[in-house]
């Protein structure tokens, strides 16, 4: 039987949704009979190849996030926004009402106890976006799984429903934003 190929990544997130996914614990063994992981922190594969399902944690805070998201959208048949940051920017989006220059100056120039004050400008560093934005503003998202983080049960449920070819539905009682 051909296995369903799944990729996961974290953009502007804290990897908390990935940690929550790891709470599937031994159920991962059963899962691996039906799915295989491509790009994911679980495999350390760096580029997403053609996949059936992509799970995206985190919002868009810099140009690299946008690039990775576009790559995922191109390669994945179904894309799932996982967690508060992917869905509305989450905690990183708390900077959205503050001008980006003020943020950088406070953190790197004017903060207390700083030495060698300098706003990082290495060309290899991805440039920040003015605001942290939800991923559905940049690409089409097929399914949304809110929570900070969503529970392992909810992530597994979403994955299994897509693998089974069902239209995923989240029970109203299981929707959580925290």
């Amino acid at each position, binding site marked *: 039987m051909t296995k369903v190929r799944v990729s996961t990544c974290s953009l502007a997130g804290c990897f908390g949704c990935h940690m929550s996914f790891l709470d599937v614990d031994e159920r991962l063994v059963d899962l691996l009979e039906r799915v295989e992981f491509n790009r994911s922190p679980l495999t350390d594969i760096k580029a997403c190849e053609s996949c059936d399902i992509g799970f995206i944690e985190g919002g868009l805070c810099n140009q690299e996030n946008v690039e990775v998201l576009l790559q995922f959208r191109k390669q994945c048949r179904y894309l799932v*926004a996982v967690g*508060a940051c992917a*869905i*509305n*920017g*989450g*905690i990183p*989006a*708390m900077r*959205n*009402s503050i001008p980006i220059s003020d943020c950088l100056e406070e953190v790197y120039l004017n903060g207390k106890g700083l030495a060698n004050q300098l706003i990082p400008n290495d060309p290899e560093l991805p440039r920040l976006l003015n*605001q942290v*934005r*939800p991923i*559905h*503003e940049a690409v089409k998202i097929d399914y*949304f*799984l*809110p929570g*900070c983080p969503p529970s392992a049960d909810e992530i597994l449920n979403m994955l299994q429903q897509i693998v089974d070819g069902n239209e995923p539905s*989240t029970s*109203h*009682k299981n*929707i*959580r*934003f*925290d």
Partner: protein
Amino acid sequence: MSQVLTIDGKDLAFDSGDTLFDVAQAQGIYIPHLCHHPDYPPQGNCKLCTVDVDGQSKCACTTQAETGMSVQTDSTTLTEYRRALTELLFSEGNHHCPGCERSGNCQLQATAYAQGMTYSSFKLLNPQRQIDASHPSVLLDRDRCILCGLCVRASAQEGKHIFTIAGRGSDSTLAVNSDSGLLADTNLSAEDRATQVCPVGALMVKQQGFRIPIGQRIYDQGTIDDLGNRRPQYHSPKSKTARIAGDSDD
């Protein structure tokens, strides 16, 4: 009780002057709402209590009951309307649930759950709003304010007239009636209904945020459809043991 209308197929008697919300509430029929509280005059600000009256959409809290009306409080279309309204409320404020002390006790969040909202399809506006932390025991976080006007009405009824909605349209904001515009220069107290009545995390009693952990809060126990519009019980800042009673509309 001589007049009769129909709500969700049931013939219900009502008194003159009753609103559709009053009639439904008396029968234990829950209609989603955020800006209405039976102790205060209805204003129809949030529109979440929109119901179908003989084919027309009307606010249940501001529509007088009339004999012969046929009212439907729930349908796929009404849920879609209410979900869109809830998404708009999330989009026009700064509602960061994972970082909010009110999470789990918040009626806006609970309403979003009940309407099946998993994300906002409207652009998040991320407005710049002022936080007022000047008062010793009450925090005003305008990022979370949904302009329901309940604190305005409660404060007026208490004779203090501390709050008002200033500005128009997207510039509307909750303003404080003092020369400085700050809560510290008013006679507001943590015990005031105006403080307690807030359905979201805009007006919060300080030093209470995490007394009850996430997971054990009001809407961690059940849905707002089942539990009604409840508010958390606070400890009084004046005493470590005294409690300020929680509140329920229903």
